[in-house]
Each structure stands twice: as structure tokens, then as C-alpha cells.
């Protein structure tokens, strides 16, 4: 059975952001994802829920091409996940459990490194730091940051990529109430720009107000 998110927004008319068929990924003998089939229209916000260890992070890491699927066929924004990995990576940004930050560099230097690897100018780094509430701590080393501040900086890293598909894995974790509002605002802005957003979260009530639809995983399978 194909699990399809219904959507009537104009952005949905542009096609599918994700088309996953019988996706499977295992760690050793244990299948973290099994027979996962779903489609997500472009420009929508999808909430992905499920208990700890249900496969949410694995699903996001597969979609971001951080790990390869063992089974199934997946296209992301029309690109094959295996054969056209570089094209997928250019269009996708992942907010992971791992911050992807260099501890010994400052917040600003971390974003400059990303800008230089993306080949974009570094002019946007300052405003972006201010946008995530780190304007005054931009020249401090990441090693001095709290968990919430690291999460904010990781968010800035995602925004710097200007993705067409944003995969936000537990975006509210470790954040204060102001941070929660920041995440909500960013998700709304991304959606307004036509970006497809997948949010893996335990904040079901909050995220359901932003999401066009929801998907639930348990034991690596879709419910």
C-alpha cells in the first residue's frame, strides 16, 4: 500500500519531493527501516513521529544521503538517491542529532567554512547569526556553547544552504521557549518559499499546527 500525503496547496502541483518505494535499511541483522513506502508532494510540511528507535533519524539520514538504503528505490526532488547523490545533496539540508560543528572554531567561522564550501559569499553569515539569536556570541568558540546554542547554530547552518528539502530531526530538542518560536517561524518561512520540510519530533501538538500531514513510524515500519 502506498502512503500518500494529500495536499491542495499550489506548491503541491509542482510534483513530488520524495517518492520512496519499499525502502529498507538495516544495522547488522536489525532492520531500522523496513518496507517503507510513501510520497510527499513538494512544498508541504510533513510531521514524522514515532517512539525512540522507531527509525525516524535513520529515515532522515537515508533521505539526506548520509547513509545508503539497503533495499528499495527512492527519488528526492526527482533525483535518484543512489545514482544522483550529488544532485540530492545540493538540494537537501539535514538538521541532525549531530551538530556538524567544529568545536574549536567560533560560530562565525563555522558558518564561513560552510559558505566557502558551498561557494556562496560570507555576507549572509552575520545576519544569519542574529536571526538565530547568536549575534552577540558569533566570535565565541562553539566549545563554550550550551546545547541549545549549538542547536541554534546548526539551524543557521541549514538555512545557509537554502535547501529545497529541509529535514529537521528533533528541531525543538534542547531549545528554550524562544527557540521553539524560532523553529516555528523558520518552518513557516521555508514553506512560504516553497521548500518541502520534514520534521521528526515528539512535539506533536505544536508541530501539527504547522504540518500539512503526518506520518508515524514504529519499529521501522509505517503505521
Amino acid at each position: 500500500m502506498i502512503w500518500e500525503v494529500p495536499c491542495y496547496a499550489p506548491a503541491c502541483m509542482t510534483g513530488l519531493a520524495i517518492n520512496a518505494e519499499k525502502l529498507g535499511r538495516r544495522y547488522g541483522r536489525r532492520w531500522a527501516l523496513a518496507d517503507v513506502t510513501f510520497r510527499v508532494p513538494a512544498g508541504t510540511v510533513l510531521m514524522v513521529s514515532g517512539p525512540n528507535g522507531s527509525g525516524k533519524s535513520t529515515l532522515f539520514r537515508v533521505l539526506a544521503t548520509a547513509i545508503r538504503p539497503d533495499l528499495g528505490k527512492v527519488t528526492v526532488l526527482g533525483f535518484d538517491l543512489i545514482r544522483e547523490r550529488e544532485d540530492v545533496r545540493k538540494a537537501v539540508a539535514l538538521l541532525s542529532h549531530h551538530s556538524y560543528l567544529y568545536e574549536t572554531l567560533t560560530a562565525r567561522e563555522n558558518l564561513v567554512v560552510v559558505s566557502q564550501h558551498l561557494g556562496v559569499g560570507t555576507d549572509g553569515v552575520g545576519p544569519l547569526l542574529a536571526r538565530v539569536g547568536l549575534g552577540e556570541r558569533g566570535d565565541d568558540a562553539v566549545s563554550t556553547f550550551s546545547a541549545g546554542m549549538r542547536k541554534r547554530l546548526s539551524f543557521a547552518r541549514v538555512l545557509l544552504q537554502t535547501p529545497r528539502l529541509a529535514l529537521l530531526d528533533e528541531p525543538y530538542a534542547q531549545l528554550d521557549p524562544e527557540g521553539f518560536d524560532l523553529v516555528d517561524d523558520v518552518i513557516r518561512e521555508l514553506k512560504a518559499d516553497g521548500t518541502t520540510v520534514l520534521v521528526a519530533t515528539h512535539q506533536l501538538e505544536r508541530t501539527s499546527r504547522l504540518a500539512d500531514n503526518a506520518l508515524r513510524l514504529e519499529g521501522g515500519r509505517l503505521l
Partner: protein
Amino acid sequence: MIAALRKELLLQWRSRAQFLAVFVFGASSLLLFSFGIGPNAEVLRQFSAGFLWLGLLLSSTLTLAESFHDEMENRALEGLLLLPSDPRALYYGKAIANWLQLTLLGSALIPVMVVLYDAGTDRIVALLGIVALGAAGLSAPGTLYAAMTAQVRGKQTLLPLLLFPLIVPALLASVKATSLVILGDPMDSLRAWVVLLASFDAIYWALCGLLYGRVIED
């Protein structure tokens, strides 16, 4: 590649205290080796090139393994790959930075060798050139193997086990060339050893750059 190199040099600058510690380790190794030979100045001078390269080799395992510490701490390397960044550019950025660090370390160990082994030479430019070429032979495969072992337990043991057999030809050429510069070159064979060393460097740098993507990707 420029972006990757800039990032590597910035990371190295932030951990410059580590460089000092590695230098002290290398200098201590040279001192301990000299104890093994005894006070015979002629024998000390004869073995000076070999001990210089052994000191640099042992020190290199520390710097090479350390060069991936920041990359693995928050999976920063994975973050760069997903941007996307070309794995070859990431490799050459890190390998060049490691080469610069090892060349600097080798150059800093030369005065220690001269003092401990009475191994002075007036061909200092040739000696520095050989140190640079030899360091290139260590850093290219060293960066690849450091990436391979960065995520496994016992990496400090595994890295030398994998690296040392592979770099024997480059190490041998480096020792011979250094020895000829210090002790004299009556048979005019220095050029042959330098060409051999440069050839190994070219092979290592080309092959390791190609293999790096396969090593660091899932």
C-alpha cells in the same frame, strides 16, 4: 580545495599547542635513540638520518590521528560531505595541511639532530627539500589511513600497523637521501634516491586522492 585547506589550517592554528607537544615527543625520541648508540660521535653521525626519520615517523602518527579528531567529534566531516563537498577536495585540503605540519616538524627536528648526533651539513636547502619530499610521502597515505581508522577503537594502534608497511619505500628513500646529504655523496647517487622518493610521492598522492571518497562515505 582552497576552502578545505583554509579550514584545515585554521583548525591547526587553533590546536597549535598540540604541535609543540608533538615536537617535544619527536625531540625526546631522538634523545632516547642517541642513548642507544652511546657516546661514539662517528657512529651517532652515521645513524643520524635514520633516527631523524624514525622520530618524524613516530610523531606523524600522533599528528595524523589528531587531524581527524575535530572531524569526528560532531561528525563535522559528514556535514561537509552533505553540503556537498568533493571528497577529493577534502582529502587534498587535509593532506596538504598535514604535509605542511610534518614538514615544519621535520625542519624543527633537524637542529635537534645536529646537536645530538653531531650531524651538521652546509647543504641545508637540500636537507629541507628532502624533509619536504619525505613528509609528502608520509602525509598522503597517512591522511587516508587516519580517515579509515578515525572511527574505530584502538585507532592509535591500528594507524601505525596499517601505515608503516605501506611507507617503507618512501621512508627508505628519505633515509638514504638524508644520509647522503649529511655524510657526503661520493657516488653521486642522491639524485636517484630523490627521484625515487618523488615517484612514490606522486603515486601515493594520486591513488589516495582517488580512494578517499570510498573510505569516508557510508
